[in-house]
C-alpha cells in the first residue's frame, strides 16, 4: 500500500505545483494589493460597464450558441439513434469530427468558406461577375455563433444519440397505443427520458462557448470579445495583470458552477432506464417520409461540414487552378522574414510537444485512474474532483497563471518548452482518466487474484493482465491527449516563445500578416493540422470499446 501511496505522490506534486500554485498566484495577484487584502481590481471589473458588458456578452452568446447547437444536434442524434442506412457508421464518425477539431482549424474553416477570399465569395463573384465579395459576415456575431454551433453540435449528437439509441422503443409505442399522437408521445415520453442527456450536452456546449477563445479572437475582430479574449488582451497587450486576475476569478467561478451543475445532472439522470442493445432499437424504415428525412439530414450534415471541406479546397487552390503551392511554401521558407523558424520546424515542434504531452498525461492519468478505481478508499470523491479541476479552468487562465507563478527561480520555466508541455498535459490528462476509469472499474478483480494465486508478482500481474485489457482505453486516452496538445491555442499563445512556436500559433501569426501567400500558408497548415487530428479521431473510433467511455 505504501508503494501505491508513494506513486500517487507524483501526480499530487504535479497538480499542486503546476495547477494549484498558479491558480493561487492569480488569486493573490487579484486580491492582494500593497496593503494586504484589496478588492480594488474586483471593484473596477464589476463596476465598469465595459467589463460588465463583456461578461454579459459572454453569457448570452454562449446561450444562443448552445441553442443553435441543440437545434442542429438533436435531429442528427435522432437520425443516428433510430435509423439504419448504408454508411451510417462512417457518417456518424464524420459528423462528430468537429468535436475534436482544434478551434483554430474551425476558425480557419469558416475563413475559408465565408472570408472575403473564401470559397463562397470567390465562387459567387466568378458566377455573377461581381467586383466585391457579396457575403460579408467575418467580424460579425453571426459567424461567431455559427462557428460555436458547428463546434458544439457534435457534442449534442454524441451524448444524446448514445442514450436515444438505447431507449426502449416500446415506451414510445406504448404511448401511441394509449392514444397519444406522435407529438405528445415525444413531449411526454421521449423528451423527459432524454432530458438528462440533452441537459448535460447543453451544459458542456455552454461551457465551451462561454470560454471560447480562438474562434472569437480570429472571427470576431476587435468588436467582439468574450471574457477569455478580454483576459488575453489584458495580459498580453495591456499588461494589466490585477484586472486580468479578477476577470479570471470571475470566469473560474462561472465555469465551476456549470461543471457542478453538470455533475449533479449526471447523478440525477439516474431515472432507471431499461436500456436495450442498439440492435433491438434500430428499425429499417421504408416509408417515404422516413426516406426524405434521412436524405435531408445527410444533406444537412454535409452542409454543416462544409467549412472543413472549404478549408481543404482553399488550401489546394492557387491562382486559377489547384496545386500544392501553399504546402510547398511551408517547407521552403523563402521569405524567412517574420518567422525565426521555418514552418517545417514548427510542425516538428508541435509533434514533439504532443508526444511529450502524451507521455506525461499517460503517467499522471494512469496513476490517478488506478487510485480512483480501487474499491473502498475513503475520500476518493474528493480526489476525483480535485484531479478534474483543470477541465474547468480555461486555457488562457492557465497560461496567465503560469506567467504569474512560474517566472521565478527555482521554477522559472518561461524560457523553456517544458512549460508548454505542462500546460498541454494539464488540459489533456483528465481525458486519459475518463477513458481509463470505466474500463478499470469493469475489470473483474478475480482476474488479478487468479493471476496472483498462480504465482505472478504485482508487476507481472500489471504487465500481463492489466495492460492488455486496458491497452485500448490507453490508446484512446493517448490519442485524446495528442489531439488536445496539437490543437491547444489559448495557453500556448500566452506562453509561446518564437523558437518553439506551435502550429496553431503559427496559423494565427500567418493570419495576422497581410498577403495571399500568408493566408495560403495558414490554410495549408490548418489542413495539415486537421488531417493529423482527424487521423487521431479515426484511431479513437477504431479503438474505443463499444458503449464504454465517457466522451
Amino acid at each position, binding site marked *: 500500500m505504501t508503494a501505491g501511496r508513494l506513486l500517487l505522490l507524483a501526480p499530487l506534486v504535479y497538480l499542486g505545483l503546476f495547477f494549484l500554485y498558479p491558480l493561487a498566484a492569480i488569486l493573490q495577484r487579484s486580491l492582494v494589493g500593497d496593503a494586504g487584502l484589496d478588492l480594488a481590481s474586483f471593484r473596477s471589473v464589476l463596476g465598469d460597464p465595459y467589463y460588465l458588458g463583456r461578461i454579459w456578452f459572454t453569457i448570452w452568446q454562449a446561450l444562443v450558441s448552445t441553442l443553435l447547437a441543440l437545434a442542429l444536434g438533436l435531429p442528427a442524434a435522432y437520425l443516428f439513434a433510430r435509423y439504419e442506412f448504408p454508411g451510417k457508421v462512417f457518417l456518424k464518425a464524420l459528423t462528430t469530427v468537429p468535436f475534436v477539431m482544434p478551434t483554430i482549424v474551425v476558425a480557419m474553416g469558416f475563413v475559408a468558406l465565408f472570408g472575403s477570399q473564401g470559397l463562397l465569395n470567390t465562387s459567387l463573384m466568378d458566377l455573377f461577375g461581381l467586383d466585391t465579395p457579396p457575403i460579408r459576415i467575418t467580424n460579425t456575431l453571426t459567424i461567431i455563433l455559427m462557428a460555436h454551433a458547428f463546434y458544439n453540435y457534435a457534442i449534442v449528437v454524441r451524448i444524446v444519440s448514445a442514450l436515444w439509441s438505447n431507449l426502449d422503443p*416500446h*415506451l414510445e*409505442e*406504448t404511448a401511441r*397505443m*394509449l*392514444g397519444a399522437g406522435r407529438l405528445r408521445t415525444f413531449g411526454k415520453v421521449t423528451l423527459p427520458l432524454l432530458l438528462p442527456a440533452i441537459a448535460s450536452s447543453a451544459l458542456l456546449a455552454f461551457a465551451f462557448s462561454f470560454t471560447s477563445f480562438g474562434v472569437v479572437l480570429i472571427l470576431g475582430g476587435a468588436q467582439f470579445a468574450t471574457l477569455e479574449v478580454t483576459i488575453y488582451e489584458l495580459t498580453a497587450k495591456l499588461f494589466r495583470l490585477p484586472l486580468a486576475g479578477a476577470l479570471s476569478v470571475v470566469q473560474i467561478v462561472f465555469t465551476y458552477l456549470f461543471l457542478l451543475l453538470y455533475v449533479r445532472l449526471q447523478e440525477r439522470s439516474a431515472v432507471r432506464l431499461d436500456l436495450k442493445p442498439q440492435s433491438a432499437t434500430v428499425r429499417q424504415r421504408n416509408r417515404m417520409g422516413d426516406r426524405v428525412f434521412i436524405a435531408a439530414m445527410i444533406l444537412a450534415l454535409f452542409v454543416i461540414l462544409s467549412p472543413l471541406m472549404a478549408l481543404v479546397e482553399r488550401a489546394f487552390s492557387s491562382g486559377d487552378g489547384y496545386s500544392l503551392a501553399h504546402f510547398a511554401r511551408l517547407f521552403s521558407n523563402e521569405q524567412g522574414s517574420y518567422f525565426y523558424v521555418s514552418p517545417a520546424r514548427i510542425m516538428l515542434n508541435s509533434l514533439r510537444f504532443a508526444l511529450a504531452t502524451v507521455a506525461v498525461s499517460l503517467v499522471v492519468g494512469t496513476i490517478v485512474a488506478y487510485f480512483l478505481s480501487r474499491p473502498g478508499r475513503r475520500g476518493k470523491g474528493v480526489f476525483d474532483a480535485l484531479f478534474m479541476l483543470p477541465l474547468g479552468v480555461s486555457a488562457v487562465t492557465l497560461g496567465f497563471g503560469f506567467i504569474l507563478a512560474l517566472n521565478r527561480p527555482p521554477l522559472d520555466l518561461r524560457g523553456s518548452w517544458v512549460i508548454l508541455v505542462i500546460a498541454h498535459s494539464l488540459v489533456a490528462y483528465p481525458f486519459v482518466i475518463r477513458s481509463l476509469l470505466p474500463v478499470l472499474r469493469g475489470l473483474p478483480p478475480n482476474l488479478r487474484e487468479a493471476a496472483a494465486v498462480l504465482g505472478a508478482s504485482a508487476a507481472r500481474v500489471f504487465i500481463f493482465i492489466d495492460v492488455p485489457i486496458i491497452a485500448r482505453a490507453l490508446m484512446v486516452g493517448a490519442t485524446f491527449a495528442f489531439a488536445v496538445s496539437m490543437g491547444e491555442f489559448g495557453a500556448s499563445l500566452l506562453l509561446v516563445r518564437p523558437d518553439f512556436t506551435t502550429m496553431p500559433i503559427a496559423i494565427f501569426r500567418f493570419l495576422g500578416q497581410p498577403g495571399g501567400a500568408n493566408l495560403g500558408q495558414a490554410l495549408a497548415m490548418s489542413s495539415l493540422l486537421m488531417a493529423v487530428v482527424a487521423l487521431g479521431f479515426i484511431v479513437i473510433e477504431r479503438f474505443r470499446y463499444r458503449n464504454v467511455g465517457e466522451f
Partner: protein
Amino acid sequence: MALLEVSGISKSFGTVKAVDRVSLTAGPGELICLLGPSGCGKTTLLRLIAGLEDADEGAVSFEGRELNRARPQQRGFGLMFQDLALFPHMDVFGNVAFGLRVRHLSRSRVRERVDELLALVDMPAYGRRRVHELSGGERQRVALARALAPAPRLLMLDEPLGSLDRALRDSLQGQVRAILKEVGVTSIYVTHDRDEAFAMADSLLFMNRGRIVQSGTPEEVFAAPADEFVARSLGFTNILPGRVVGRSDSFKIECDLGIMFASGPQLEKPGDDGRVTVLIDEKAIAVSTAPYDGPSGKNVLSGTVKEKLFRGREYVLKVRVGLGELSCPATPDTLAGGLKAGEQVSVVVEPDAVRFLKGS
C-alpha cells in the same frame, strides 16, 4: 358476430415473410390465445393489428370498419409488451393515468378511473410508488391496469408473463383471465407456453412460420391437431413417419416400431405413395411386464425399457420398440415389480388411437 376481422394480412422484412396471409376473427369478449414458437410472427401480427407496422397486403377491420389507414392512437386498441415498457419517469399513478390524460379527461375523472383500475388489479395503495420499486408481478399488474385504463376495444398482450418465474406465472394466469373476463374486453393473448394457453383461452390460434395453422377451442384442437407441428406443440411425443402397406377395414402400416393397424377416424388421408405421419396417443398405450393375453384386434408389440422418468405424480417410460421408441404411461401395476431399465415389456396400442397426421 365478429368484432375484429383480420383478412389475408402479410408483412415481410427483407426476404423474410414474418406474417404470411393471416386471417382471423374475434368475437365480443372473446379471449384468444396465439400460440407458437419464438420467431413465428406472433409479435409482428400483433404489431400489424395495432398499426405499429404497415401491412404489405390484407386488411384489419373492427366492427366492419377498415382500419388500414388509421394510426395506432386512432384505433382504440391496447397493447402490452413483454418487457411491459412502464414509463420509468412516472410513478404508478402517472403510468395508469397516461391514457386518460391524453384523452383530456377531467382531473377528478382521471383519479376516479385510476383508483378503480388499481383496485381491479389489487394494488389500491400503490399510486405514488416509483416504477422500479415494484416487484415483477406488481409491474405486470400495473402494466395491465395502464392498458385497460382507456377502455380499449381490443387488448393485445404479448407474452406478458414471459419474464416471470413459474410459480408467479401460475398464480397470475388466473388473475389476468379473471380481470379480462370481468372487464369483458376482447383480447388476444400471445404465449409460447401451451399450459398457459390452455389455462387462459376461450379459443386457440396456432401460428408457425408466419401462418396460422389451426384455430379452435382447446378441446377441439386437442382432439384433432391439424399437423405434426400443432401435435408436438400440444405435447404429443409419439409421432413418427410410416407407410401404408395394406388396407381392409383398417390400415395396415409399417413404421420403425414394426407392423401396426390403424382403425380410428383419420385426420389426414395417406399420400399417393402411402407415406403417412403416424401419431400414437400416449393414453392408449398399455405397458406390461407379463406377456399380453387379452382380446385380439390390438397392436401387440414387444420392447425394452430404455428409461424411467419421474414426472412428479407419475412415471413415463421410454420404451425401445423395433427400431423406434415410444413414450408410454406407467400404471402402478406396471411398476409393481420395481421395473428397471433394460427389462423386456409388452406394449399394447389401441388401433383406434393410431392416427395419421399432416406432416410438417
